């Protein structure tokens, strides 16, 4: 266990070191989310009716959830690159704990997700977002986001270990995450959607997390959303982490 933690930290450090050295990747999780916030707030914001809220207040929890859901993308991309460049072979030939290569990735994502959340919150606060709850709920919300992002990273780890190239990881990630985050309460009220989409949106874990975030930051009624989001995150980790590790054990570098 000690060994697993040490190895995981060494590899997480490696994954974080490379980010500032790959400016294209760094832009992906700094400038791009800011752009999305501004586009949604000022292009769609005027047209979307959100009873009881300013659209900015409605939007910020939703768009931060979307950003965190995409955060694991760095893991898929990185693993896919490591496979193609033979690094996974090297790691597998070392006396390293077997799950640490993946855990090093998903742990690094927690750090990048945190940076992303801070950037988006600051952007939101500048353009008029305000918390309607206390510090404890604000921090609790951030922790919930990071937990959910960690779960999403394990899904991306499976994608990264399954596809043939970083480009394919890119394609599959977007095709999967875009509908899931859009058919939710992240950007529009669910009851504005056609019935079929509404049915999906209501059971979508993204909706549950977004509603939990609105409870923690905007003081909307809680329902079961906070616990629901925690359970969803733990279930996703319990399903996808073992699949990712099994794929890693069998991985042959391409």
């Amino acid at each position, binding site marked *: 266990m000690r060994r697993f933690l040490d190895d995981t930290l060494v590899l997480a450090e490696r994954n974080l070191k490379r980010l500032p050295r790959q400016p294209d990747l760094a832009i992906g999780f700094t400038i791009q989310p800011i752009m999305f916030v501004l586009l949604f707030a000022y292009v769609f914001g005027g047209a979307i009716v959100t009873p009881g809220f300013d659209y900015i207040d409605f939007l910020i929890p939703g768009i931060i959830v979307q950003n965190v859901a995409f955060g694991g993308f760095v893991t898929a991309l990185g693993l896919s690159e490591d496979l193609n460049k033979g690094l996974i072979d090297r790691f597998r030939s070392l*006396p390293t704990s077997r799950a640490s290569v993946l855990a090093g990735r998903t742990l690094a994502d927690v750090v990048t997700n945190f940076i992303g959340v801070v950037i988006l919150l600051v952007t939101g606060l500048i353009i008029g977002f305000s918390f309607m709850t206390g510090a404890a709920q604000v921090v609790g919300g951030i922790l919930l986001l990071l937990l959910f992002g960690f779960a999403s990273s394990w899904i991306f780890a499976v994608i990264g270990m399954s596809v043939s190239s970083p480009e394919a990881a890119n394609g599959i990630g977007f095709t999967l995450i875009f509908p899931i985050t859009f058919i939710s309460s992240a950007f529009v009220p669910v009851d504005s959607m056609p019935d079929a989409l509404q049915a999906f949106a209501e059971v979508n874990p993204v909706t549950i997390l977004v509603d939990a975030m609105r409870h923690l930051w905007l003081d909307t009624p809680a329902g079961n959303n906070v616990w629901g989001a925690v359970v969803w995150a733990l279930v996703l980790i319990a399903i996808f982490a073992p699949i990712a590790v099994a794929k890693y054990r069998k991985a042959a570098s391409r």
Partner: protein
Amino acid sequence: MHFDPSSDEPAISATGIRKHFGDVRALDGVDLEVAQGTVLGVLGPNGAGKTTAIRILTTLLRADAGSARVAGLDVVDDAAALRAKIGLAGQYAAIDENLTGVENLVMVGRLYGMSRADAKVRAGELLEGFNLSDAGDRLARTYSGGMRRRLDLAAALVARPPVLFLDEPTTGLDPRSRIELWETIELLVGEGTSVMLTTQYLDEADRLADRIAVIDLGKVIAEGTAAELKSRVGGLRVEAHLADPADGDEAARALAPMSDEQPSIEGDLVRIRVASETGAIMDAVRRLDSAGVAANDISIKAPTLDDVFLTLTGRELVAAEADGDTGEHEEAAR
């Protein structure tokens, strides 16, 4: 560097290794043995199964049948302990391009379980040994192909492994980098490291390997020292390129007394087997001269590993690589 100097257990021994990918038999009952402190060259065309063999012996892949021990440990039952005793440098330089040379080696050292401080000291030693000290703080993506291979080999040596696996270590390198890498490998062997090295280059196997296993279509088709393998295709021969190809028969008659075997004629080239190097060229010159045959070039040829491969498989190494169906083996082997 010997993993256990007191024992004479081989550094690597594999028995009856089989591995198939779908319908393709990548390895079809392979036996290999590497004595401690020696180099085994595994020679064969692309797709012969060389990489698959390395992957099985380094615990990256599990064989369908057969057993293997490396550094005294079983590749399946003792896989975790075994990984601490081996170094692997694969076909591709497996380095992180977004880390510096130092960072790459420190990371590998720490994954072998070294402390940060120890890993740094070791990284410094290796960079110096591989002539990379000046580039140690540069990102690896700025390195040339030769530098990447050297860094990759350095990474394989971080933990001073007693057994080293090198999968086509010089493929794609320029001639100078190749020779430098060969010298490094020779130095390691001199210190007692046991090495299994795959290659498709005969000169590489000839220079580095104590013993050579020729592998083709998943089977070891010959094994021995370079000299033993060469002796299987016959001894020395004198080759004469004639000024006028029409003189072929005349030249053959003149040279025939030099050997028990008849000379062969191919265009302007006349070949004859000889027992010894000494005096053979002078003898041939005299005989051709007194027969009135002019030659542009007369030389002694020793058999090469190319000849060995040709004799064993009926194919030349290069032709074997161009073989359509062996390409699939390689795909599968990866």
